[in-house]
């Protein structure tokens, strides 16, 4: 397989009160064509910033974003606009991302107008097709306004809008976090089906490891702007290498009362991203931390076939 998207030493800074906040710090990874890469981590770890940086909605301050051989970083506005039809974004809050005063049919058709599809009949045909694909009845829904739909249906509308240009890469930023459990499963299944049908490559961002597991081929774990671990999904769950991945796995509440919740989990909360710890950013909460961890930033290293971890003392490794 070949990489459709690759990030090389990607860094994104925000200026906060005269200081630099490294929301994404020196992250390198790739997403193969046809693959779903899950991206997990806790609030504020930089997941959304990374997604926005890929689309150049937030210009990176360092490193490269390469999409299908083209470097997006530094691409002019006009060239980026043309590129945008190949990369789409789906957000967490479906209701807020739809213009409340526009009809559903027009919302979904909008990307077609932007890229210059002038034939109204052609636009209608494509809107109907994609609405049907995402499980909305065009005859009922096209003329309605967003407030007439539930959160789950609004997410279907957002997915339809993202797919109408037949993109190659779709970045889903917490697409089901705002939805109820019973609706969440519908949308996850829909995304899987759309991926097959349109041959999509997905970057699937979420904080919920179980949700990410359900859809991802590989998973990348971030902490305070840094990539901690990246591995094939099954491997990551069976044998996490990075202590932070292990902590995340232990913290998931399991819907089974015979499984006692893990106690004595690494205490404390993530430190401020404005003032990250020296060396390994996880060291203030890591049970394995030692002097080396405070002194040296751990580089991302392959610990087993296809499994990479940025840790001086990984939990697993080659025998």
């Amino acid at each position: 397989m070949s990489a459709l998207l690759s990030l090389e030493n990607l860094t994104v800074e925000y200026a906060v009160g005269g200081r630099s906040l490294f929301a994404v710090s020196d992250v390198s990874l790739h997403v193969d064509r046809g693959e779903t890469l899950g991206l997990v981590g806790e609030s504020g770890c930089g997941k959304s910033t990374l997604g926005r940086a890929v689309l150049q909605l937030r210009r990176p301050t360092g490193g490269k974003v390469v999409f299908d051989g083209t470097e997006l970083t530094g691409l002019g506005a006009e060239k980026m606009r043309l590129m945008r039809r190949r990369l789409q974004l789906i957000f967490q809050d479906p209701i807020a991302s739809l213009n409340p005063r526009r009809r559903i049919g027009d919302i979904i058709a909008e990307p077609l107008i932007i890229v210059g599809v002038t034939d109204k009949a052609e636009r209608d045909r494509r809107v109907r097709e994609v609405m049907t694909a995402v499980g909305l009845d065009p005859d009922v829904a096209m003329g309605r306004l967003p407030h007439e739909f539930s959160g789950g249906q609004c997410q279907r509308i957002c997915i339809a809008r993202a797919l109408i240009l037949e993109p190659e890469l779709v970045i889903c930023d917490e697409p089901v976090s705002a939805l109820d459990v019973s609706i969440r499963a519908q949308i996850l299944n829909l995304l899987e089906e759309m991926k097959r049908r349109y041959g999509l490559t997905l970057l699937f961002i979420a904080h919920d490891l179980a949700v990410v597991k359900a859809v991802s081929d590989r998973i990348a774990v971030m902490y305070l702007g840094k990539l901690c671990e990246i591995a094939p999904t099954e491997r990551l769950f069976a044998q996490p290498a990075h202590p932070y991945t292990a902590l995340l796995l232990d913290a998931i509440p399991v819907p089974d009362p015979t499984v006692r919740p893990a106690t004595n989990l690494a205490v404390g909360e993530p430190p401020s991203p404005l003032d990250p710890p020296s060396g390994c950013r996880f060291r203030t909460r890591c049970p394995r931390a030692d002097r080396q961890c405070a002194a040296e930033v751990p580089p991302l290293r392959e610990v087993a076939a296809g499994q990479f971890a940025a840790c001086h003392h990984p939990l697993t490794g080659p025998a």
Partner: protein
Amino acid sequence: MSAPLLSIEGVSVELPTPRGLLRAVDRVDLTLEAGRTLGVVGESGCGKTMLSRAILQLLPKRAKLDGRVMFGGRDLAGLSREALRRLRGPELAVVFQDPMTSLNPVLTIGTQIVETLQVHLGMSGIAATKRGAELLAAVGIPAPEQRLRQYPSQLSGGMRQRVAIAIALSCEPKLLIADEPTTALDVTVQAQILDLLAREQQRRHMAMILITHDLGVVAGRTDEVAVMYAGRVVERAPTPRLFAHMRMPYTEALLAAIPRLDSAPHTPLPAIGGRPPDPTRPLPGCSFAPRCRYVEDDCRAAKPPLADPERAGSLYACWHPR
């Protein structure tokens, strides 16, 4: 047997809306003994929060409450505002999803804890400050003396929730209602907050109602579970029994729809089709009928009562249980 600490009898809550009368809670009965934890699970809009507000007597002004909320032998619905105020804190306390609901942004953490202790327990300023620092330490806040001087905005979300819990626990309440206390928090912080609640609850022999949409949270942290759907309790059982054998199809479907850690990637999820009914347009029969895979004609005709026909300690509202 002595009377339970809390007993909710036939509680309904109705709210006027532009679309008509909305029955947020529909004839709910629940009991809770001292020292026990009851989990209330359900999806958004099923009435979890309105039920907790009915217990706390904190309903919106235009809401209409029916039924009785017996707490320590008194019907809370009949108490004066003053009597209720005296109850909140030493008897009944609450922790909300957003800790800022109960914290005042313009007062320091210290002022808020000290005031609570002074008002309810009549402590002196010095004693209350000392106790405040102890409480913060007990909920896992490092450097508590310094934290007392800080404002809520200077703390992380997890720290704020710890402070809200410290204040809720400060007067040793007999019942704590925790309404989605960890929904806004990260999983690693969530685990710590749930541990904290469980520890403090055991130490104080306090009863707790843990309201959540997460079946994972109730599984590990409660003695008994009530599942709500469209304003009603549709299943209620001791936690191990509920998970071992779900009788009501909604409960079963809800559990099945959660992505499981032990299933392989790309396993299709058994989703529940459709969505909950419009609460201003109640259905004559079972509210879950439009989405239920086991539905039969009689389900649409009459509402199944919440009952325990086998007398096995497990109640469910379904004509064709699993």
